[in-house]
């Protein structure tokens, strides 16, 4: 938020937009290929790339001098990860007993 790019950011915005659309199309097509157990992983990885692009460039995290934004984003993702992983510590290991 604090740092605005003085050269035209428009090129960046349209490039990211195009990339996002292409990535969506790729996700859609790859879903119909048989990658065995990796279909879900690939779909989620592409989704994460898209989300990261939106956050970095559309939400202006890239080049922002505000350190707190990165802390807030990482904190949110970390606690979500805690919820998912520690729940799986139970559900994932029930069959072991």
């Amino acid at each position, binding site marked *: 938020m604090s740092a605005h790019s003085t050269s035209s950011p428009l090129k960046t915005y349209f490039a990211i937009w195009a990339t996002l659309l292409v990535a969506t199309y790729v996700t859609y097509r790859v879903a119909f290929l048989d990658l065995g157990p990796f279909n879900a992983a690939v779909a989620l990885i592409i989704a994460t790339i898209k989300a990261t692009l939106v956050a970095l460039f559309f939400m202006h995290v890239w080049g922002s001098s505000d350190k*707190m934004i990165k802390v807030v984003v990482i*904190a*949110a993702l970390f*606690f979500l990860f*805690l*919820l998912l992983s*520690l*729940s799986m*510590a*139970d*559900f994932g*290991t*029930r069959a*072991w*007993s």
Partner: protein
Amino acid sequence: MATAVAQPVERENYLNKHYGALSWLFTTDHKRIALLYLGSITFFFFIGGFFALLIRLELLTPVGDLVQADTYNKLFTMHGMVMVFFFLIPSIPAVLGNFLVPLMIGAKDLAFPRVNLLSWYLYIIGGSIMLHCMLTGGVDTGWTFYTPFSTAYTNTKIIEAGIAIFIAGFSSILTGLNFVVTIHRMRAPGMTWSRLPLFIWAHYATSIVQLLGTPVVAITIVLVAAERLLHLGIFDPKLGGDPLLFQHLFWFYSHPAVYIMILPSMGVVTEIIACYSRKRIFGYKFVALSSIGIAVLGFLVWAHHMFVAGISVYAALVFSLLSYAVGVPSAVKVFNWTATMYKGSIHYDAPMLYAFGFLGLFTIGGLTGLFLACLGIDPHVTDTYFVVAHFHYIMVGGAVMGYLGGMHFWWPKISGRLYPEGWAKLAALIVFIGFNLTFFPQFILGYVGMPRRYYQYPGEFQVLNVLSTAGATVLGIGYLLPMVYFLWSMRYGKPAPDNPWNAAGLEWKTQSPPTTFNFDETPVVTWEAYNYEELGPFPEQESSGA
């Protein structure tokens, strides 16, 4: 407003600047909002206390003779829900936090004053819905709402209670948001992170928990409501659902919620101990980081509420280990408070008596938590009165004592009046005695096997139950006394000087009570926190009344 005690001209302050109900209901002054909260949470404290009274009356006799079983289920449910969501969680942050955070950091107000007012209105709306729910039948699932009873079998007003808690939770989230942004962006020049009062660090840590935990219980309530309305199977084993999923989602918030309740109180105790020992807090950095540590580690332990519910034993091992870990930062604080008092110049005024009470009772409560974290012990005492005693030691012996200590400590700043010290000491003593008489027998009851949430019990448990009820009566008197003399002091109390305790902190550099915008000029901070060497001794006190 006539002052009953002679004071030539009353200075303009936040209380007398504007008059009339609308000036309060549409205020954006964080100090007025704090008082709006004070009135509301006190009201709900009485409601929760009323349910406690009925519970303890029923438990005077081994048979269920005061109320029916279904009614008893509603009593302990409503007691828990009201006390947790409408008293303990808002209490210190919404009253003392709202009042003091801007003052302590040298700001004119919180970052978002209108959002602050919205927080209070959301709390009132949630509270009103809860009141209506209680008056029209209430809920009987326990405050923990376990499924599938809450989703598929009970006929009580789950959805209405859920809506009330959802809205109150949103209030809590917005308060946390306000504090985090305020502490980051509105500190006065020179107020670096290492000069902040530890009360601020405690509220910052609390806000992290409020922000990241509450949304999960909010969505859980949505799921419960949806399941109840549409007979879904998300939590119902008959339809392929897993009741433990509810418990995981519920406790992911509700365990950190107990840290929302205790962290602010620890912050209060730190301020009081430093002032009444006339010493800088021992190990400032450790105390500050331990608050953050409690907030983070507190999110890693929730399934210790589920050891006997059917989680995998491997998960139980992990959560048991993590639950031991979360005791460490709390212990760090207890050691540091003790070390602060060592070779300090101790003054045994009411706030310090409450702090002492906190130290002992919180330690007992915390240690018994470690017993419960042990997988060998927990199956024996879980869902017994041992657990009830454990959490009441922390929430009442800890959080409420801290709250009362803080109310006394900052009362001159909030009201411009001194409370009567003699009565305050007496009340603190009565609270301490009443509390221990109420809850210590419950440790024994739990250990010998009395289950919680039962309205009848074997005859051999009666003596301990009678002691507990007697204690509850004493405790109630102890709580009523401050309400009486605080109100009395607003009219008849001695006018307070700006810094009656010669305490450290920017809030004591403003007038008592402060003006609406707190500081005439933005302060520039050039000194360290808790500079008691420079401030000197505790002043001779002229208290009000006794």
